[in-house]
């Protein structure tokens, strides 16, 4: 083992113990790494959860019309001609007002061809009560928070007012809401969708909006392993001009950009923790250089070259960075493993779990760790710690042995 490496290890880990300086420095880097890992994993988890939710509720590709369009044979044939497409279901959507026992709500309503929809959107997976088989043209499925907010249960009759009725109201016509039965309640796990979504048959939606037989688009499920970008491009090549295909990412580009921006910003801000830790390593190693000036002089007097003395201090930064990164990864993995317990404790001790869930819009803290992120964290923290040893190393290398040995 080269002596700079040997001596660096001995100075950091003297026989039988870990020096206090080493302990504090390793913990500093470790905390930074743990926070970076936890934050990137949790943000990745939210992103992953949102991605899965979007695909589950829209399919991987969405065909949108320039306006309402007829789901005629030409479109159906064009969609079916793309090999990557596994299934497609037409939809129409809008906003309605619901009322049940004088409690109003203004949710988004989505109408599907229910038979075809089952092959595209796995709604059964999210049903908490009721059955899709019970849904007809006079019934709806409510999202869970929405159902709770108006107090509706399975079998209750609720009133639905559509914008079309407002048009009639302006013409002084009698305004009669559509009475529909609650056939099911679903919960996706996303607060926004769970608090304001109604699902119904395509026929009911077309009636409410006066669309006749027109639709707003298609949700498309791709075959396993198919590339959404390639599939959307293939669909755009064969679709008539009335409609265009978008991938799930493009269809939610603004939202995805916000999620990515938040994730990158949090990651960026947390890198400063590691940078601060690196500065503390620099500071501590500089103190060590001053404290060990005569030892550094001795090394030079005994044949140690200036570059080797510098390497000894750089190696200390490297070892602290490596040990701190290992500790940080272990700590981060532990925090991620027990994240729901930790969130539960924090929520219980502060605002209460229910309020917490309502306020932060999640009940289970998701986590998804990308290998790329872990590699970036490891490389960044080790490089920052090693660079932290450069200034002390430079100071040590500049010391002339004869002057260092004379120092008091």
């Amino acid at each position, binding site marked *: 083992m080269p002596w700079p490496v040997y*001596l660096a290890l001995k*100075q950091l880990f*003297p026989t039988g113990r870990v020096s206090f300086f080493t302990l504090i420095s390793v913990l500093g880097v470790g905390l930074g790494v743990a926070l970076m890992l936890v934050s990137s994993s949790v943000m990745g988890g939210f992103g992953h959860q949102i991605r899965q939710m979007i695909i589950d509720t829209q399919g991987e590709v969405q065909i949108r019309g320039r306006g309402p369009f007829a789901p005629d044979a030409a479109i159906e044939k064009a969609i079916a001609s793309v090999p990557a497409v596994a299934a497609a279901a037409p939809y129409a959507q809008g906003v309605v007002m619901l009322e049940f026992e004088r409690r109003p709500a203004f949710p988004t309503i989505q109408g599907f061809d229910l038979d075809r929809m089952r092959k595209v959107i796995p709604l059964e997976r999210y049903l908490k009560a009721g059955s899709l088989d019970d849904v007809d043209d006079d019934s709806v499925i409510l999202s869970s928070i929405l159902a709770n907010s108006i107090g509706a249960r399975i079998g209750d009759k609720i009133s639905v007012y559509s914008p079309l009725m407002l048009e009639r109201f302006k013409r002084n016509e009698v305004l009669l809401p559509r009475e529909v039965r609650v056939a099911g309640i679903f919960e996706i796990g996303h607060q926004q969708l769970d608090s304001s979504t109604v699902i119904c048959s395509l026929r009911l939606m077309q009636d409410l909006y006066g669309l006749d037989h027109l639709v707003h688009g298609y949700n498309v499920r791709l075959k396993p392993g198919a590339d959404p970008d390639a599939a959307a491009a293939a669909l755009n090549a064969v679709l008539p001009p009335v409609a265009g295909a978008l991938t799930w990412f493009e269809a939610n580009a603004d939202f995805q950009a916000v999620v990515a921006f938040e994730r990158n910003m949090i990651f960026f801000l947390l890198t400063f923790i590691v940078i601060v830790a690196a500065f503390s390593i620099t500071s501590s190693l500089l103190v060590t250089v001053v404290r060990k000036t*005569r030892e550094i002089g001795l090394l030079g*007097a*005994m*044949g140690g*070259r200036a570059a080797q003395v510098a390497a000894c201090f750089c190696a200390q930064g490297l070892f602290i960075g490596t040990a701190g990164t290992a500790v940080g990864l272990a700590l981060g993995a532990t925090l991620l493993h027990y994240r729901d317990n930790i969130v539960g404790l924090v929520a219980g001790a502060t605002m209460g779990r229910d309020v917490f869930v309502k306020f932060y819009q999640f009940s289970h803290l998701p986590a998804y760790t990308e290998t790329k992120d872990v590699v970036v964290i490891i490389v960044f923290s080790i490089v920052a710690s090693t660079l932290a040893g450069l200034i002390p190393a430079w100071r040590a290398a500049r010391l*002339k042995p004869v002057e260092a040995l004379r120092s008091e």
Partner: protein
Amino acid sequence: MQPPEAKSGSDSLGVERSAFGVGRSGSVLRAAGLRKTYPSGDRTLEVLRGVDLSVAAGETVSVRGESGSGKSTLLNVLAGLDRPDAGELTWAGEAAHRLSLSELTERRGRFLGMVFQSYYLIPELNAVANVLMAARLVGAAGAAERARAANLLKQVGLAERAHHLPAHLSGGERQRVAVARALMNKPAVILADEPTGNLDERTGDEVINLLLQVCADERTALVLVTHNPAHARKCGRQLLLKNGVIGQP
């Protein structure tokens, strides 16, 4: 004391003897006309004013002088740690004053051993690791070097304390470790700068006797800077540094 002749070769433990031989003049260390000045305010302090010194292989030489007479400066210049302003320095026939700093550093590790007043042991290393550090610094720390380090500690009477940290050793024991370290690479010369300065009289005597004994055993030349006349008299040759020049006491 009749100095033994220095040779190249390997000892019984298989460690290569220093490659440095003896110069054509028969000396392993030779200084001629060494001059060294230091700036002192707006004046120049002339510390060495033409020092001539020749040390034969295995010879022991003491250098005495008043405080501030330049004894430590002389040792630093002889060790290549400080550059002379003028004069020649020869290490085993090689003109050391012409070598670059990196060449001096590289050769110093094998040619010279140094013993300081303040021991300068590395506190994180135990006694045997401190001795072995001298070998590590010149890139050799194999099984033979480990055995030699252990044997040197045995020679200086610290076999039982080999795995103790410097903090757990007395001053005399620390200096004995420093002596063993100085001998580790089988140097041609040991330069000792007041090695008993921090020790009581009895312990100081023990260390000097030990230093002279191991230098004789290892056939290593010794330049001993000391204030103590009794210690100086134990060396084969006694010199006095006065007014920047070397003379007889």
